[in-house]
């Protein structure tokens, strides 16, 4: 179940949707009433940003592998 009660301010709806369709981030004309399109875009952006956790984990893992390799090399 979900609910959506946000109304976009008059005049901003079409503008933000067109920008979003072109892949351009929509602009919230009024930050207090950013509009449904902007809010959806913002959530989508935050969702996609979570994928950065994967390369970050790989970078951290690379440091561990490097440490282990150095440890093995020194102990030989």
């Amino acid at each position: 179940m979900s609910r959506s009660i946000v109304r976009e301010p008059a005049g901003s709806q079409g503008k933000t949707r067109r920008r979003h369709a072109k892949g351009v981030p929509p602009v919230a004309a009024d930050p207090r009433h950013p509009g449904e399109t902007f809010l959806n875009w913002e959530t989508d952006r935050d969702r996609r940003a979570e994928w950065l956790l994967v390369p970050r984990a790989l970078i951290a893992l690379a440091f561990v592998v490097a440490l282990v390799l150095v440890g093995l090399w020194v102990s030989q």
Partner: protein
Amino acid sequence: MTLEDWLDGLHIGVVVLLLALVGFGVIPILSTAYQFFVIPFHSVRNHYRHAGPYLPRVAVIIPAWNEGQVIGPSIDRLMALDYPADRIRIYVVDDASTDSTPEVVRAKAELYPGSVFHLRRATGGEGKAHTLNYGLREILRDDWMQATLIMDADVIYLPDSLRKMTRHLADETVGAVTAYIREGSADKTYLTRFIAFEYVLAQLAARRAQNVTGALACLAGGAQLHSRRNLEDLGGQIDTSTLAEDTITTFETQLRGRRAVFEPNAVVLAEEPQSIRALWKQRLRWARGNLQVTARYRRYWFRPDRNRQLGSLSFGLQWFSILLLPQVMVLAPIGFLGLFFLDTGIANAAFRSTWILAACLYVYTVIFALQLDGKASVSSWREAIFAPGIVSVLVMVTAFFPGLLETKIPGLFGLRLTVGGHIVWTIFVYIWISIAMVVANVAKAIEGTRVGFLVPILMYLVGYGPFLCAVTVDAYYREFRHADSVWEKTEKIGRVLG
């Protein structure tokens, strides 16, 4: 069976027992490793797909006792949030303050008519939960409120934070949402930088893992958003019987079948203690609260049949790995030391395996965590590196590169460790983590004295983790003695950056 056979059997038995003690020390390492292993899965197992544009009418409850210095700017900032102004009402529950709090709040109520309300308790001092309940009773009287934000007087919500929290309530299975509390003092000290890194680990990392596994340990006391239905299901009241009302609320929310979600992109700045004693007091309250929570929910731990998430093995291990860490930090060194006297070879192998594992986890967590919050990382990278303590980092180096610190480096200067010195060094690295908790107590004891200048040095040597373990030991002691559960407020003076 000859006496020799019997002694051999006894020897083997004792070695196995000591290895078990060492193995006990490996459990928190593996538990943390698992936690960090699941974090990347937050890229697919998160709540964003169920979130939606939802801006409910939010009643903000601010419990306030002598918050005259911070409450005014907090209200101004709340009223300036990127959120429809007609959908926010602020209720400051004044817990019989004796400073300028009532005047400041009344002035704000005049400035923002219909949006700011001053609720004053005639008698206060009963604690935060009682103060919150006073406000909750008020806002539940009518049906205006669709969601409630419980916050602290000193915290500052970044402009987009509230709407990033409310979007998760679009999913009616979500009962509560919490945000990322970032240490935000303008005048940072080594201690606030340690706390900043701790919050990255404990929130941006650990709570993402909890989002993935489906059980949240705690909604931050300064940033918890509840749906009206969740609050009503909780009886419209916050628990007042423990020192961990926020954790109880979190558990009760989830036990009633609702989700509790951590939103990493909703950022809230908070002022944290700048002295060891103030931090000790705050964390003692938290640790005692956690012990009380552990006892209250004893029927759920490791019982997935009673609750799939809170009773899961992974959640239980995460919870008890923190709670029982002080015991681990005593028992594992006993294991190392006993093995050292019985069988040096086994002791060395056990020590190296355990500390190499710990070193790998330490490198992984620090590198990973430093990438999660650029601002915190820039200011706290030194504290991130030395979070386990400089001495523990050297112990890891000893485990990874045997002979480096005790033989090779001294050899460069023509120095050599004697046999006796080598034994003392080995025993020291084996039992250091136990000593670290004692030194943390010394740091607390000497703060404010003539040798108080040594406190930061001791903290870097001991590390922030062992310091928290020392606090937990104190919590055990006080709970064992049934010490008074007095809710002592952490002093806040408005040092948070705007």
